[in-house]
């Protein structure tokens, strides 16, 4: 589950991780009030307006139909007010949102971290994630902050450092010190960095994050180490023990069809193709998508109905797939194990009759437990449903449907 920057920063503060201070607001008036408060606290006229959407590249992204960037600095109340007006309620397009962009419902009014002071400022990069191969968490960091870390990894791999954390002992003091040394820090900044890394790791584990990225990690002119931006992903499997975090989910950031599918316990991912599919099991669902492509179509979705496909789930699946006007055919591929194919077939027939007016070809491939009975049910139903038992038969039916 993704969180907004402002939510992630609130959580980090609970773990004593210093962050760029700010306030999330939903109106221009509230933005102005937030600016006044920040100005009083910092004694600095400058402040930053940051669009809160679940996508990266906000600083370079632009509001659709204007030159307004998704992250912008203002140096007066009037500036902040104008930027807030330009962003709030408008659509931000970044390299990660696709051309459609995302509507901005909230903005973060944040302190300007480039305030003057005795020492130079510097941007770094630090993230914590799972190393699947080692089965351990790894801290990845670099002196090259504020830019796309994939580019750094590609162009200058020697500038990326990694520190693995042993699951038994957790992050050790010497490891946090090593990170601060490798970033080239000294004095107060060094001490602050050690504390930052230690507390950040505690947050990562305590919140059951699957990824936590601080970019940039920032050294201020008075040697504080703070998180200026934060991307936090939570492990959905762990949300059962964090009801407070589960409540932070922002469904307006998700595809509405995917949200609806979730309510039926269906695992659905919207794609751009023309052949819808409904499958039991994630692996078989991906394989079915691949087969659609090989048969000349493009998959319109990923849909795993899980291990308990029945009339209700089949009907919900149908409804969800049919919402997409690009879908020219639907392939249902069920390998019955515990699930009996004849029951699924009955569900398909029932759903078909209930929905009525299905004008696109439906291909049903039922294999496994009671497959023959299922095929008979479908064939005798009088519906315009084509049935198959072998996967290769289903593939050629898809080929005909998209030809």
């Amino acid at each position, binding site marked *: 589950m993704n969180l907004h920057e402002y939510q992630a920063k609130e959580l980090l503060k609970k773990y004593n991780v210093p962050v760029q201070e700010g306030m999330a607001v939903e109106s221009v008036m509230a933005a102005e009030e937030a600016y006044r408060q920040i100005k009083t606290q910092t004694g600095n006229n400058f402040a930053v307006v940051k669009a809160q959407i679940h996508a990266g590249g906000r600083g370079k992204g632009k509001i659709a139909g204007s030159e307004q960037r998704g992250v912008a600095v203002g140096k007066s109340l009037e500036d902040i007010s104008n930027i807030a007006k330009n962003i709030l309620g408008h659509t931000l397009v970044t390299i990660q949102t696709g051309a459609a962009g995302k509507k901005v419902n909230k903005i973060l009014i944040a302190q300007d971290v480039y305030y003057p002071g005795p020492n130079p400022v510097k941007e770094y990069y630090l993230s914590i994630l799972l190393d699947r191969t080692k*089965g351990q968490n790894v801290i990845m960091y670099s002196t090259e902050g504020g830019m796309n870390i994939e580019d750094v990894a590609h162009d200058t791999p020697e500038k990326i450092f990694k520190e693995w954390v042993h699951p038994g002992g957790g992050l050790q003091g010497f490891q946090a010190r090593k990170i601060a040394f490798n970033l080239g820090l000294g004095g107060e900044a060094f001490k602050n960095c050690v504390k930052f890394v230690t507390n950040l790791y505690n947050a990562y584990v305590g919140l059951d994050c699957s990824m936590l990225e601080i970019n940039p990690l920032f050294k201020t002119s008075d040697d504080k180490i703070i998180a200026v931006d934060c991307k936090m992903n939570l492990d959905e499997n762990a949300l059962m023990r964090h009801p407070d975090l589960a409540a932070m989910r922002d469904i307006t950031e998700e595809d509405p069809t995917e949200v609806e599918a979730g309510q039926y316990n269906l695992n659905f991912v919207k794609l751009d193709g023309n052949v819808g599919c409904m499958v039991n099991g*994630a*692996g078989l669902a991906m394989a079915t998508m691949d087969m659609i492509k090989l048969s000349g179509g493009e998959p319109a979705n990923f849909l795993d109905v899980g291990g308990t496909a029945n009339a209700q789930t089949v009907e919900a699946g149908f409804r969800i797939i049919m919402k997409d006007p690009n879908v020219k055919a639907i392939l249902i591929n069920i390998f019955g194990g515990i699930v009996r194919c004849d029951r699924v077939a009955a569900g398909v027939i029932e759903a078909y009759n209930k929905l009525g007016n299905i004008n696109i070809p439906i291909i049903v491939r039922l294999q496994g437990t009671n497959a023959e009975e299922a095929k008979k049910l479908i064939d005798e139903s009088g519906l315009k449903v084509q049935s198959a038992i072998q996967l290769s038969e289903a593939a050629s039916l898809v080929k005909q449907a998209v030809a």
Partner: protein
Amino acid sequence: MSVLVNKHSKIIVQGFTGTEGTFHAGQMIEYGTNVVGGVTPGKGGSSHLDRPVFNTVADAVKQTGADVSIIFVPPAFAADAIMEATDAGIGLVVCITEGIPVQDMVKVKNYLQGKNTRLIGPNCPGVITAGEAKVGIMPGFIFKPGRIGVVSKSGTLTYEAADQVVKAGLGITTAIGIGGDPIIGTTTKQAVELLMNDPDTDGIIMIGEIGGGMEAEAARWIKENGTKPVVGFIAGQTAPPGRRMGHAGAIIGGADDTAAAKMKILAECGVHVVASPADIGKTMADALKK
């Protein structure tokens, strides 16, 4: 021969008296699997499905001599169940549970270091040795005995592959569902290695998917050590990057863990790669003729 489980395996079920445990233990017994008892804390001393129930895995091992455990415990308690079985000296732990938090599995993986326990899963359909023992949730009738081994991250895709193999006139020795989570007990390479060393297995079907580097690792091992034909399929050629496709581990993280990248490495290492899941059985039959 076969690998991991056979008719002599003594199996206990953790989460024996729950809905899932009861249903699947019943199916396993019906298949002819030697289920010797189960564990449900607090219900020790009672009987379930005509088999004894124990409070702890250690008790079950002491009383029944069990050497295999299958886990149907809910996700919040599953990591604990795996460690309990390991501590009791169970040699093979098969964890079916889906939805275990990743940080719990980081702990489990560390706990297993240096122990003599092999973990299969979690989030897997289990292990079946055709005609001998079903330690899992797969429909048993599909797995007709034969000489082909299957290693797979996916449940229903394993059934699909086994069905095609059987219809191609071959049959199955052991099918190992290794699971679709980011951290699992037995890797693709380790499972392939077991089957490569099994004298009763003539060919191996390896089914992977997007995410992680386990298929590439297995392929490199096969290139160096392979003595039997391996047919490979990677699900998710059409999956978009950055999206989790059902399985917690099925997410494209970079250029190396796409289906295309994995298929390329597999082919370079001499694996018979199929693009369509419909061609798995036929390709294995052809490969064996060569």
